[in-house]
């Protein structure tokens, strides 16, 4: 333990550990500028939770920042483009659907689009009037062209990726290019200083690994923060019931089958099914509440879903992998000289794919706010804890919104989800407010909100929420501005549909050709 913060020790590999290592090492130019050391200790026996995962568009900035090529990333992580999510059956449990695209509404922040939408275009789904992206998804288009530079977008996008390959991909880059020291060994013991700070992790073959700052990326086991410091998990199960998942890998019916460029989230009797398209296969999973459904029932529903999209034989051959989790987050995320990132910090159901985004936000803040000395750490830790408690609370509320707005009554699961006792009070208050005004920056005023007001608009209006009629009249200027925005969105859709290739066509192309950096 030295007064200067020089040695960062990351415990645990996987996406969280390697993203944290990559961001910190790249920001601090470790191989070129002496001063900071980053060591990642990873147990060879612990296999990371490698289900197909969705990201947010922020991942493009993160990967560029770490310095990897997008073409390499797409090739090596079986990655595909994601332009948003399509929610099926969430409102009434029928064939209805709505989109939550990554593009902000055209004119977002400049005009109130909601009032003119309802007055003149109420028959058109909100997302489809203010954004062309639902149309791009429906038509299976890629979000960019072969001539678009790496990480640049024609339509805003994120990725679907194979998490089992993502960690090793980042590991190769971090160790070969960014000067991260990689120790493949078991942590057998944790050594603390007299003042309670962590001094070192002790490994089987590599001995003591001392550090000034420890980053706990040990997954659900939360070895440092949860086990060593005993920081309790704040459970969110009373609000979000899901605590189990069954995941499978589904082959495409044919080598040239279309790849959806959005996550398909289909509501079920006591949970929902994710369906994400990678290049070589689909990742499909059923996340559900064990209090409302048995594993056998969940598995049957999952097989029925897969069979409907492929055939009975494919569905019968699947071997689902079971995951159990306690939805929640640690009461404190940065304790003394230890901060948790990823599953070690918390986990809720993957609805809206916030897990990796929270890792990116965490890694970025740790890197940018890395305290120069131990004395400064308390200030940074307090700030970090406040920022991430805020984010976890907002994430919880946003996910809850998807259940709260449902009108499904086909199972106790959906009915109980609407019980007042399960609704976070802040969300209940906002919902009242939104009966009279659309979600806006006044509701989410931080610079880096985890979900912007636009996301709330997409979900609210996508799920049939309508404001009270007789709301305050809008200005003449707004009506004209909104019409212009709607026309712009339509025109953009037309030109993008004409110019964008099929999602699979672009992904296939990237196997032979690289995207340019400029």
């Amino acid at each position: 333990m030295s007064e200067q913060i020089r040695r960062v020790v990351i415990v645990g590999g996987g996406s969280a550990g390697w993203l944290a290592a990559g961001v910190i090492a790249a920001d601090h130019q470790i191989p070129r500028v002496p001063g900071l050391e980053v060591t990642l200790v990873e147990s060879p026996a612990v296999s990371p939770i490698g289900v197909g995962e969705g990201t947010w568009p922020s991942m493009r900035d993160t990967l560029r920042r770490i310095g990897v090529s997008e073409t390499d990333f797409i090739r090596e992580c079986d990655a595909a483009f994601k332009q948003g999510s399509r929610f099926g059956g969430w409102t009434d449990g029928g064939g209805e659907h709505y989109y939550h695209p990554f593009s902000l509404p055209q004119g977002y922040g400049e005009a109130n689009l909601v009032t003119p939408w309802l007055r003149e275009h109420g028959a058109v789904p909100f997302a489809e009037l203010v954004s062309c992206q639902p149309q791009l998804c429906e038509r299976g288009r890629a979000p960019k062209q072969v001539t678009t530079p790496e990480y640049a977008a024609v339509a805003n996008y994120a990725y679907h990726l194979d998490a089992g390959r993502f960690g090793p991909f980042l590991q190769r880059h971090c160790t070969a290019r960014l000067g991260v020291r990689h120790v493949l060994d078991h942590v057998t013991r944790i050594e603390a200083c007299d003042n309670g700070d962590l001094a070192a992790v002790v490994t089987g073959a590599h001995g003591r690994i001392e550090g000034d700052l420890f980053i706990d990326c040990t997954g659900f086991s939360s070895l440092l923060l949860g086990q060593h410091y005993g920081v309790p998990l704040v459970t969110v199960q009373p609000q979000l019931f899901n605590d189990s998942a069954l995941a499978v890998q589904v082959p495409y019916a044919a080598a040239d089958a279309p790849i959806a460029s959005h996550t398909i989230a289909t509501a079920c009797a006591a949970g929902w099914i994710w369906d994400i398209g990678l290049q070589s296969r689909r990742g499909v999973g059923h996340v559900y509440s064990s209090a409302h459904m048995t594993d056998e029932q969940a598995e049957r529903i999952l097989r029925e879903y897969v069979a409907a999209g492929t055939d009975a034989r494919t569905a019968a051959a699947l071997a689902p992998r079971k995951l159990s989790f306690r939805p929640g987050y640690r009461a404190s995320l940065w304790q003394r000289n230890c901060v948790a990132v990823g599953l070690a910090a918390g986990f809720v159901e993957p609805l809206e794919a916030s897990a990796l985004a929270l890792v990116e936000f965490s890694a970025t803040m740790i890197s940018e706010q890395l305290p120069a000395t131990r004395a400064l750490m308390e200030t940074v830790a307090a700030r970090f804890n406040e920022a991430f408690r805020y984010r976890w609370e907002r994430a919880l509320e946003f996910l809850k919104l998807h259940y709260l707005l449902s009108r499904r009554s086909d199972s106790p699961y959906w009915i109980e989800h609407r019980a007042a006792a399960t609704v976070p009070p802040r969300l209940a208050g906002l919902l009242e407010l939104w009966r009279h005004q659309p979600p806006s920056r006044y509701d989410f005023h931080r610079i880096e909100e985890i979900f912007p007001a636009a996301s709330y608009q997409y979900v609210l209006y996508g799920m049939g929420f309508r404001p009270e009629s007789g709301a305050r009249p809008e200005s003449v200027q707004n009506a004209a501005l909104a019409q212009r925005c709607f026309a712009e969105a339509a025109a953009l859709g037309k030109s993008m549909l004409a110019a964008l290739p099929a999602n699979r066509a672009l992904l296939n192309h990237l196997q032979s050709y690289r995207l340019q950096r400029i």
Partner: protein
Amino acid sequence: MARHAPLNNVEHKALRVVTQRAAAYGDDQMYALTVPAEFRNVQSCYPIVFQKRADTGQFQPLALFGFEAGENLFLTESGWDAHYIPMSVERLPFLIGGPGAPQDGKPGPPMIHIDLDSPRLSTTEGEALFLEYGGSTPFLERIGSLLGSLHEGIAATPAFIEALQGHELLESFVLDVEHGDGATSRLAGLYTVNEDRARALDGAAVSQLHAQGHLEPMYMVVASTVHFRDLIERRKRRG
């Protein structure tokens, strides 16, 4: 539409090729592909720029003739007003096709193909392709060697582009031109050599580029940009 066929001295015995330059023969092109091996000649007449191919996304060098599609400012009543025409234009309506018949178990040499829909083809005027008893005319001989050079040049281009990109020497640019008559043009989606970065290259980088033969063509690209002024003048004169 192009209709490509391998050239042979039986079917195509009577064909002649018009070598005049005019819009009617498809010369009204805004740009044409060029290759580093001819940059010295090209830079004496035209700006050399880079563009991404729409089908592959890969960079290719172009000689620029105008500011908008269909505009070739070098095309006049009396032909093409420049002392050098890029090989990719000069060789038309011929092209290199797939390998010919195998010889000794190896793929044969690439064959000359011809676009049978080209407006340049005639039986009454222009250059003959074959001699009376089937041999190639000097014109066709010259086309053959031109196609060979172009073929090699195209094969050598990716290494040149890669070297430029390796030193981050390519940058995009947008050129807005006011033509004085109220008309404006915008050239976008084009790339050029960043001169500041070229000047800042260290000795090792210069030496490496030189050893690989990329230094000279790189500076030919830099030198070629003076012809933007010439293009603007030509456009002004045309009115």
